[in-house]
């Protein structure tokens, strides 16, 4: 087992290196970050811009920039900021491998602080939505599977299809329109949305109602369908028939035998979906003006803020790799039939 884990970890390292190299090339091709100053009143003079570019290493070949990103430049010979050898400055970057995710081009503070500011907000939105989704999906999915072809099953299946096909912005804009705009017109107290409230818990909860509702609505459908089909597959197995023949109560059959086996694929699914919670929900965040990771990525993207973009992408990639490994381990632990040699 340990050997398997070690092997997987070792396998992930070249994977992450390749991912990071490809992403680094892509993000650097996004344009000249200095150009966003062009229309501002306080733009640094042309000479000062050159100095900034040399300090950031933007005039070096891409491979060198990647290496600096990876292992820093504080051990390298000093940078010639004026191009003529008259002023040398020692580099201060330690590189990603030593934990330095770089300095944001836009805010001039460490990239990690940008992520740190936004990540909790993303989690505040995504975790409750996800927990609600999975919880409700299990309940509804089992209910539906156990009563296959019944009236309720048909209703649930149709509704899942309906919500499954609904694009997130449709439901988001509809709910905003009804609960905020129209409520005001009808004289009712509109639900507050947009942003995260004024700092009080009550206000935060109220601002969360609509976005969480939308996220749950579309995620729920997919999970319900998955659990339902998973349960149906299990319920048709021979050992379930045996259990029933043995005289076990139906609820016991469902709980002890059926669901436990159906849960295995669910674990895999959750394991694969969890890291993507970190990425936030870009469109939802935009509509509800929620200050999350998704928006951070879009903002950095629009300003060609390469260090922050790379930081976000690497955090995500590492999370995905880690969660995949965790999922495999949990799966092995849960399913005694599988053994990794």
């Amino acid at each position, binding site marked *: 087992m340990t050997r398997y884990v070690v092997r997987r970890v070792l396998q992930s390292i070249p994977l992450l290196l390749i991912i990071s190299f490809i992403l680094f090339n892509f993000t650097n091709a*996004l*344009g*000249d*970050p*200095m*150009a*966003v*100053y*062009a*229309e*501002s*009143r*306080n733009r*640094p*003079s*042309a*000479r*000062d811009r050159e*100095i900034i570019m040399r300090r950031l290493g933007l005039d070096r070949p891409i491979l060198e920039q990647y290496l600096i990103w990876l292992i820093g430049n504080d051990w390298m010979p000093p940078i010639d900021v004026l191009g003529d050898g008259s*002023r040398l400055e020692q580099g201060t970057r330690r590189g990603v491998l030593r934990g330095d995710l770089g300095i944001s081009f836009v*805010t*001039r*503070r460490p990239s990690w*602080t940008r992520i*740190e*500011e*936004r*990540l*909790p907000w993303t*989690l*505040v939105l995504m*975790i*409750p939505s996800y*927990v*609600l989704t999975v919880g409700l999906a299990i309940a509804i999915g089992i209910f539906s599977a156990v009563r296959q072809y019944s009236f309720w099953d048909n209703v649930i299946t149709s509704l899942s299809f309906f919500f499954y096909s609904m694009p997130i912005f449709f439901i988001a804009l509809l709910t905003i329109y009804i609960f905020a705009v129209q409520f005001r017109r009808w004289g009712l*107290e509109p*639900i507050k*949305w*947009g*942003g*995260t409230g*004024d*700092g*009080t*818990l*009550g*206000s*935060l*909860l*109220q601002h969360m*109602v609509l976005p969480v509702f939308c996220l749950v609505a579309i995620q729920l459908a997919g999970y319900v369908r998955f659990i339902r089909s998973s349960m149906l597959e299990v319920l048709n197995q021979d050992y379930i028939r045996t259990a029933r023949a043995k005289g076990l109560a139906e609820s016991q059959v469902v709980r002890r035998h059926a669901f436990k086996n159906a849960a295995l694929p669910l674990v895999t699914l959750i394991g694969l979906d969890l890291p993507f919670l970190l990425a936030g929900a870009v469109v939802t965040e*935009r509509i509800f*003006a*929620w*200050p999350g990771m998704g*928006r*951070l990525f879009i*903002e950095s993207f*629009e300003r*060609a803020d390469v260090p922050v973009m790379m930081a976000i992408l690497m955090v995500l990639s590492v999370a995905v790799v880690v969660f995949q490994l965790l999922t495999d381990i949990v799966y092995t632990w849960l399913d005694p039939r599988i053994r990794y040699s």
Partner: protein
Amino acid sequence: MTIKNRVRLALAFALALAMVLAGFGAPAQAQDRNTLVVGFAQEPDNMNGFYSSMAFAQWANDLVQASLYDFSDDLQPVLVLAAEVPTRENGGISEDFQEYTVKLKPGLKWSDGKPLTAEDLVFTYQMIKDPANNMLQGSSIREALEEAEVLDETTFRLRFNVPKPFPEDLIGSPGLSTILPAHIFRPIYEAEGTIENAAENQDPTVFSGPYVLREWRRGESMLFEANPNYVFGEPKIKRVLIRFFPDTDSQYAALAAGQLDFVPNVSEGDIPRVAASNPDLKIVTVFGGYIESLWLNLRTDEHPRAGHPALKDVRVRRALRLAIDRETITRELLAGATKPTDSIYAGSPFENKELGVTPYDPEAAAKLLDEAGWTLGPDGIRQKDGVKLEMRYSTTTAGWRNNIQAVIQQQLAKVGVSVILEKYPASEFFGAFANRGINAIGEYDIAQYANNTALTNPANVTVDEALNCKQIPNESNPGGQNFTGFCSPEMDEASLITKTSLDPEERLAAAYKIQEIMRDQVPLINLFPRGDNYAYNTKRFVGEIRIGSGVGNQWFDIMNWELK
């Protein structure tokens, strides 16, 4: 992770278990009349104005800094720390314009009670001059200043290496908006040889302006308190709270919900919806030297790219200007917040009002085009000698600009001019020549964007850099800023006069001449002046508030603002 963020995480988990559709009717914090709540869409990166290029950093800095003299909303000088604006008449500026003698008001104090004297000013200028400080701002002072010396406690002298007729660029708020407290920075400078890494830059403790920074919660807010030692006395509003928002959408949402009193950065495209979001809001545009224009590619060299041949004919350029209905654009797309103009000096005291604005006249445009030999083809597009009058019209990807593009495209189509719309992200559009920036290498025929220039004196940076014969970029001159390729020796001469002449009448006449030449030769078609757009909640303020131009200090009048 900070404790605060850890608490937020724990909260998320707790919420997950106890999530209920609750929270209705939670009372919002009552607004109090002693705290002005301002919304920023970006957090300042530095509290030392010399080390930031961010507009938001400048706004935050201006709240705690006092300059020597400032400019009001109608661009009139306002004395802050200086006793008078130096001129030749009062002896403040020497005959040869190379020496300034500046007098401070007596009895000035820093927020910590220490006296603010000529020594602080001279120290500041010396810091600007020293390249070891790596300042991002102040380059024009750095290049021109020879020496600075203290004459007495309230008087100092500056000596420049060339004649400098315009004091505001060097001692007024456009040029010098931050004064460093010598008693804080000198020890650091003497110990380290530079003030670049001083902790005071990020966590300042001593201030000269109407407010002092009391608390900076990174990622959240900045709290300021009134400074009793301010030269004009303690401001009426006791506290200012600047809240940071991750973007303009959440900022506008808070403004509409009444949580913010003042927002300094409403962009053109957002004016209509901000105005509509809450009837108590008022939007003020203070003209600040940006003129949104259509810049025409008049370059001839093929390398990089020459513009459409039709643009070489001045009649075609004039026709284009006649064919665009700028009035409709400003009225419908910008909620009438601004008006069309033909002058690069629009909104300033140097505007040549006699010239007026070219009216919208598509028939005259059509006639001019016919005259120039561009006749209507069978497909409705004009052509001449087999070449179609089809041009590339480029701008950034900002939504409001794209809307203007679509409208102008249709207006031009009416007179037989076809344009292809192109949009680029800012980093490509404004990129340097070496990076194949679109404007720099001439990959356009018509480019829409705004120049930016201070309008406090007739010397106009735009004319000097972006329209100067010597500034046309090419392989040997990659830093050139004249992307249109326009060259008029006559205008260059007039521009030189505005920069160097020692006679204000002569300078004004030269500025008028420049506007005449541009009106006549049309190197660019001005659309409308853009300024800084501010939104504030009228319910919160007593009376109207005066907001300064972004050229100087927007908060020039903040000590007189009053909340209900």
